[in-house]
């Protein structure tokens, strides 16, 4: 493990940690590993990195210790640390690693500055600070398929503050035409970014691949968000009707399961 290069990346929500890491994941000649400690088995970032860079080993939290103990020589490892993790935790303190903080350029003093070996200027957003610590609310949605205009409306309301103050939102959502989209919002940056994921269309029943929503903010009305999410999802019969139509439009496309972690 000592010969591996481990980089811990921390920073405020929306500063651009995943974006910064992504630039190093294009090199297919190396053994690349990506971990998101504290985010459980599935997280939007973990899954999206896996889809975007299939040659990268994305490691679920429950396998982290085993994988870190048996890393191949010269492996490049990136650990993305959520804002909610304690930077002084013993586990992080004992790792032989490079510490990088991706922070808004306007932030000059923070515990990330004290912790990091290197500070990278990220998105020019207002840092909301950690006092009080923002809430992190996650909702796995695997199998749910959304009515697209309902999802648009929900995202406008969510990011506009209808259900609490949202600083950061990211998610993977399934559409009735079988496509899946990554959705990204950072308070202070313009608009909501929609990126189609490079996956086969899922046109046979409910998608058996990860989708979900992660929201960081304050005073989040979690129950209302959950109800509104569900009200935006398609019922079985409606989904079947859509899928039947798209199958007729795309008769040559096959559904296949492409990724699992």
């Amino acid at each position: 493990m000592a010969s591996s290069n481990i980089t811990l990346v921390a920073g405020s929500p929306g500063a651009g940690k995943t974006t910064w890491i992504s630039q190093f994941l294009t090199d297919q000649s190396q053994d690349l590993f990506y971990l998101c400690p504290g985010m459980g088995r599935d997280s939007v970032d973990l899954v999206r990195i896996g889809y975007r860079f299939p040659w990268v080993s994305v490691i679920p939290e429950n396998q982290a210790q085993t994988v870190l103990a048996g890393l191949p020589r010269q492996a490049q490892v990136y650990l993305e640390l959520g804002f909610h993790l304690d930077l002084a935790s013993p586990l992080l303190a004992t790792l032989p690693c490079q510490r990088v903080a991706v922070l808004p350029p306007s932030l000059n003093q923070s515990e990330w500055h004290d912790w990091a070996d290197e500070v990278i200027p990220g998105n020019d957003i207002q840092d909301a600070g950690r006092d009080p610590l923002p809430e992190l609310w996650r909702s796995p949605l695997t199998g749910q398929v959304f009515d697209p205009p309902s999802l648009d409306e929900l995202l406008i309301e969510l990011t506009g503050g209808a259900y609490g103050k949202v600083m950061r939102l990211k998610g993977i959502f399934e559409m009735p035409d079988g496509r899946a989209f990554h959705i990204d919002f950072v308070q202070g940056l313009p608009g909501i970014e929609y990126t189609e994921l490079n996956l086969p269309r899922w046109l046979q029943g409910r998608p058996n691949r990860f989708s979900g929503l992660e929201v960081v903010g304050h005073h989040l009305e979690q129950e209302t968000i959950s109800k509104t999410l569900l009200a935006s999802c398609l019922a079985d019969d409606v989904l079947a009707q859509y899928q039947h139509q798209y199958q007729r439009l795309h008769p040559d496309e096959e559904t296949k399961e492409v990724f699992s972690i």
Partner: protein
Amino acid sequence: MKLAVISCIHGNYEALNAVLSDIDAQKADQIYCLGDLVGYGPYPNAVVEMIRSLDIPTCQGCWDEDIVEGLNACECSYPSQLAETRGRLAHEWTNSVIHPEVREYLATLPMTLKLDNLCFVHGSPSSQHEYLLPSMDGFAALERVLSADADVLFCGHTHVPYVRDLEDAALSVNVQQPDQTESPKQFQVALRQIVNVGSVGEPRHGRPNATYVLYDTDTAQVTLREVPYDYAKTCLAILEQGLPPIFAWRLARGMEFAERADDPTHVCER
């Protein structure tokens, strides 16, 4: 004569009061109302009682029709599943609180009203549910005005006010009948106008202010009016009445309670 034309009040009594005060200050001689007195907002009965007490000539809007006929529109009415769910909640709430005499009054409202060369409708002369958007094809827009046998067609329903001039319309038609030679016909249509008066109680122009229109029948001058009002009171009433809180959030931002239908030119087939 100075006319004030209002529309789409949607149970927003505060907004209606503010607009009536503004109309009074503008010294309008006559008020016309293009319907949607009820639906979404917290004071459907009070709004109707106010309109009736002032004896304002009023057309029937799509929400008024739904309260009379029940929800029997085709899928066109809502752009999304979410909007439909919320619309149904609003309809059920309105339906449960509406007074019998108010329902009877809504049933008596006509589809169109005429005053000389002016016609007043909620959506279009074809349907309360049809949206006459400013981007609508010019020929189709002209057809709607001509079908109403009017020079100026006043409408609402979109909740965004605009004035559209339809000028210098020339139509050429070739009529071919069996065993007869083709016969060309030319039509020239003088200036026609569509005036959308916006919405009193449920604006969609990005600000919470109520909108309506003043029209001078002598000069044909159209004046779009935007009237601030205490929308926070309406928002509070929405919450107190148990209507979905998201309605209050959207109203305060001029976002309307639900978005416009996906295919706005579609004419509902009941």
